[in-house]
């Protein structure tokens, strides 16, 4: 962002100057002949909004015809245990208590939380698994509602990542790099595809805290940051409180007309400032004031779910009436999707079950199971699953051995990056399949590994973007969401 500022105002070189002036004069003259006015900066806030609305790839520059128009990402923060939910490993129940063989571990780096353990006693799921649906996908009894929609899901059992701790792992998923500072997926999409609703942000974020591990890992707002992209593209968090978006409400005694006049005046001043200095962040500022003004009416409308019929609450579950729960956020996600929000990011915290896993994961799964399934059903009955990509998954999996003491009813699991499970639905993803396979120990991947960058490449592909061509030049390097690797997983596309 600041590099644009520099090149534009002070470092415009001879070549750029000639090109710009020649082309500029030419088009101006042509425009005059054809009887239309050349588009240029105006101090009209609506024009600034229009800039925000169009992405660099809109107007026919997409690399492929898109299968998905929007994404709902149900991020399960903390690392859900694939072994209790999706990946059935009877061998672990047979070998319960035995030490993890070195031939399986193969020198895998462990976190500081278990690297000191003398033994790594294997432990299988306390919860039974069953096959469901026509596809016969195997799910644990902890997910009875998800089981109803398995024929709409693509379950990927062979995800793997590089990070072993929460923050780097989530940052990796969201930005393609373990180090912070790069744009989040939603920001990339806002930059590339632009907005479909001029009254709501392109990239929204909803948080909820699970009952599984209440005092688990926190999240940082930089996870939905815009990195080096223009600040227009950062995610906007909708809170479950009196003020869903902070600092949006007018003070007592201020009316809409007064606010409008103020925003117009500030925009005019800002525009003068922009002409003087040429900092593109100033036009971003103008657009953000305008967006905030529009959100003053659009956000309360979207957050007020009291008009939803009873059957919707029944589908999403009783907690969907309680603002701030995962269920309520899932319902909000559907409302945001209906209104054309491009990227809706949910985070549900509390999956980090190092100890006390059996009871904690039961609660945690109950938090999300019904609402996740309901969201898929609800989108489907409305025809929206056609072009909405729903993703459910965390930042890594959990170990096949117990962290801490293994008792008959209790155990814990540490972080495991080598294999874990996520699911996707809609948006042109093949429904009713289970992709990838792990070994009998649930430790390594046997077939069809899917790296985080492969996942990101596939996500972009569904939105019509070639991840290798979608770049942004910053500090002399062209950056991609997928950094320098990643292959689209064609096998899971319908």
């Amino acid at each position, binding site marked *: 962002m600041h590099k644009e500022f520099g090149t534009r105002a002070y470092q415009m070189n001879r070549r750029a100057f000639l090109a710009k002036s020649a082309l500029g004069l030419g088009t101006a003259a042509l425009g005059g002949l054809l009887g239309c006015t050349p588009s240029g900066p105006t101090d009209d806030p609506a024009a600034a909004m229009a800039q925000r609305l169009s992405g660099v790839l809109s107007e026919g520059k997409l690399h492929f015809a898109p299968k998905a128009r929007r994404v709902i990402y149900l991020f399960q923060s903390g690392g859900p245990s694939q072994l209790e939910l999706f990946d059935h490993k009877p061998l672990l129940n047979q070998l319960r208590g035995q030490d993890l063989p070195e031939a399986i571990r193969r020198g895998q780096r462990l976190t500081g939380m278990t690297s000191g353990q003398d033994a790594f006693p294997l432990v299988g799921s306390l919860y039974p698994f069953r096959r469901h649906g026509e596809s016969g996908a195997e799910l644990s009894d902890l997910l009875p509602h998800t089981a109803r929609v398995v024929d709409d899901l693509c379950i990927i059992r062979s995800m793997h990542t590089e990070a072993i701790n929460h923050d780097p792992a989530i940052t990796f998923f969201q930005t393609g790099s373990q180090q912070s500072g790069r744009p989040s997926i939603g920001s990339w999409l806002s930059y590339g595809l632009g907005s479909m609703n001029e009254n709501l942000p392109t990239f929204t974020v909803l948080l909820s805290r699970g009952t599984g591990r209440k005092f688990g890992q926190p999240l940082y707002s930089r996870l939905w940051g815009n990195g080096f992209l223009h600040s227009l593209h950062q995610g906007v968090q909708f809170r479950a409180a009196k003020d869903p978006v902070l600092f949006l409400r007018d003070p007592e005694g201020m009316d809409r007309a007064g606010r409008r006049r103020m925003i117009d005046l500030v925009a005019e001043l800002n525009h003068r400032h922009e002409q003087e200095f040429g900092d593109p962040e100033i036009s971003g500022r103008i657009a953000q004031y305008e967006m905030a003004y529009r959100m003053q009416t659009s956000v309360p409308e979207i957050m007020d779910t009291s008009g939803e019929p009873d059957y919707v609450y029944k589908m999403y579950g009783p907690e969907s009436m309680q603002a701030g729960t995962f269920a309520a956020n899932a319902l909000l996600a559907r409302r945001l999707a209906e209104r054309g929000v491009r990227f809706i990011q949910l985070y549900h915290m509390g999956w980090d079950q190092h100890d006390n896993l059996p009871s904690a994961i039961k609660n945690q799964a109950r938090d999300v199971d019904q609402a996740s399934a309901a969201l898929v059903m609800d989108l*489907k009955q409305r025809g929206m699953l056609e072009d909405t990509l729903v993703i459910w998954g965390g930042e890594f999996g959990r170990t096949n051995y117990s962290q801490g003491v293994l008792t008959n*009813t209790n155990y814990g699991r540490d972080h495991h990056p080598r294999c874990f499970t996520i699911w996707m639905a809609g948006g042109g993803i093949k429904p009713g399949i289970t992709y990838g396979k792990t070994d009998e120990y649930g430790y390594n991947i046997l077939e069809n590994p899917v790296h985080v960058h492969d996942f990101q490449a596939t996500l972009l592909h569904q939105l019509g973007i070639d991840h290798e061509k979608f770049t942004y030049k910053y500090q002399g390097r062209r950056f991609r969401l997928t950094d320098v690797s990643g292959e689209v997983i064609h096998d899971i596309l319908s």
Partner: protein
Amino acid sequence: MDALLYFGRFHPLLLHLPIGILLYVYLHWGYAQLLGRKQRPPNFNFALGVGLATSLATTITGLLLANGGGYEGELLERHKYAGIAVTLGVPLVWWAYRRWKNRGAFGLLFTALIGLVAVTGHLGGSLTHGEDFLTRPLRIRGQTLPKNLQEAHVFEQLVLPIVERKCVSCHNPQKAKGELLLHDLNGWRRGGENGQILVAGMAEESPLIQRIFLPKGDEQHMPPSGKLQLTVNEKNFLRWWVDSMDGYEARLESLAQTPAVAAYLDELRASNAPQIDAPSPREIQRLRQGGFLVEKLSANAPWIAVAVAEPDSFSTDALSVLRRVGPAIRELNLAKTGLEKERLHVLGKLPHLQRLDLSHTAVSAASLTGLAGLENLAVLNLVGTRVDTSIFTTLRQLPRLEKLYVWRTPLEQIKGAFWEQHFPGLEVIGGVDVAQFGRPKLVAPLIVAEAELFVDSLLIELETKAPRGEIRYTLDGSTPGEDSPVYTGPFHLRATSEVRAVLAMDGWEDSDPVSKVFMKSGVPVARIDLATAPNEKYRAEGGATLADLEKGSTDFSDGKWLGFEGKDLRLTADLGAVHEISGVTIGALNAPGAYIHLPLSISVASSVDGDTFTPLQRRQYPAATELTEPGVRNYLLSGTPRAARFLRIEVESQRVNPPWHPAPGANCWLFVDEVLVE
């Protein structure tokens, strides 16, 4: 040998020099002839000298390449002799020039040489790119596929065209890379230098399939990097073909087909489809002015997706703008617009429409007859419309319809079996059956008040987010039932009470009861003697802390709590004088994460003189079974009103952490604050 081949590989570079130089000299000479004799001719000696040198170098490198470069056959021979002839021809032309200068004989000879250069070049090009390199674009377009692709010969009409486009330029009789020929059936049967390329029925074992599926960076990957790659659909189709291989003669209809086949056929149809012009910016502009949102679907296809910008104010007349760009429209979204039925025959003018969304509009089956015959329509969304069974005739004329959305239409009532029988292959998506979720249990309401202790009265509010819920409550700690009062607004408490509330709603199971004790300080406690000493760190002001009318927070270290490690608490409260009492309230802290648990039981006994105590009440409480969030719980114990000055209170601790705790068996704590008497 390898070093010679290395030089041989300069042939493709060098060969352009004699072609260019000789052609240039020829043109220059011709130009001079045209302008008349006066024009100075070019320096023929030098120019032809360079021409000779480069053609000599080209011939030598060419011969080296022919020896080891994997080329063979008649074409190679012809190219070789033509090239040698060119090299010999250059000195001949030179000699003729010196002898006859500008006479006709020389001109004839020079023209012949240039002709020979052209022939040699063409032969060489055919060697490198395949004999049909030039004509292929003309041929492929006009290639005749049967109208019904199911009748196609799989190998000849579906497989071979892929291979001809992407493999034969190297695997042909002239080039025969890896000694493999793919241009005709014999080559396929014979295989390459490593033997057979296919194992019928086992794609995974077939070298040809293995290689095309290797990662792009792999050395063995085919086609090699830099050459035109196979598309995903082509690869999947080839894999399917080998898996279901039944000789080379089979027709498509005789084989079991997978989605991979359908995907490839789609791709094939698309590439054979008549060319459609992408809408011009002007046409798109016109659509936008007409109230539509237009999205161009991709950079390399003409398709557009059209939606209505402002459904509320959309006028049906605007639809006519769509006609002009009709063939390019792939997706059309008219949801929530005030469509009128008589205008919808415009929909029939969108021959390539794949997705149509008419949800939440007033359309009926009669207004959609225009859809009949749309050959590409795959997804039709009718959610929330009045479309009924009279749509069937139209549906039968939509050959490629895959999905039909019928939630909240009369069609929703139709059974799945009927659809399967009459519209096989059509996926009909109705509404979600809410009954599958049973009677879910409501979430308990919230009890909200400013404080838990009060002197005169306290305002209580009960809150719920359930929009149509009803809260019933009691003030005596009993579970609210049918005849308990319904909450209508905030109310005042004037005595110590346990408020208990339940949320009820039609079609839902009642919530669990929620309760909270609010304490009125009726009789001040003068002094408290602790029979059990609190822990050094959490002793605050001792017994006085329990009677200071200040409650501890959820933070155990706030200095308002008394903490006891691993033991029960016994205390005696002195009211200073004999009072009429009826109940006692004691607060305890729950913070399992910090090893602090609630008591297992509490008993209270009263006495007038401090010697003989009579029990007031003893209650037991179930221990928690899982980790919960920190919170304060108040225990109300009451009995028949009596006169008393002293109260003896015994609080039973859990003493050690329960088995489910992260540190089972470790000493745990009891934290107590505030004893109130009424």
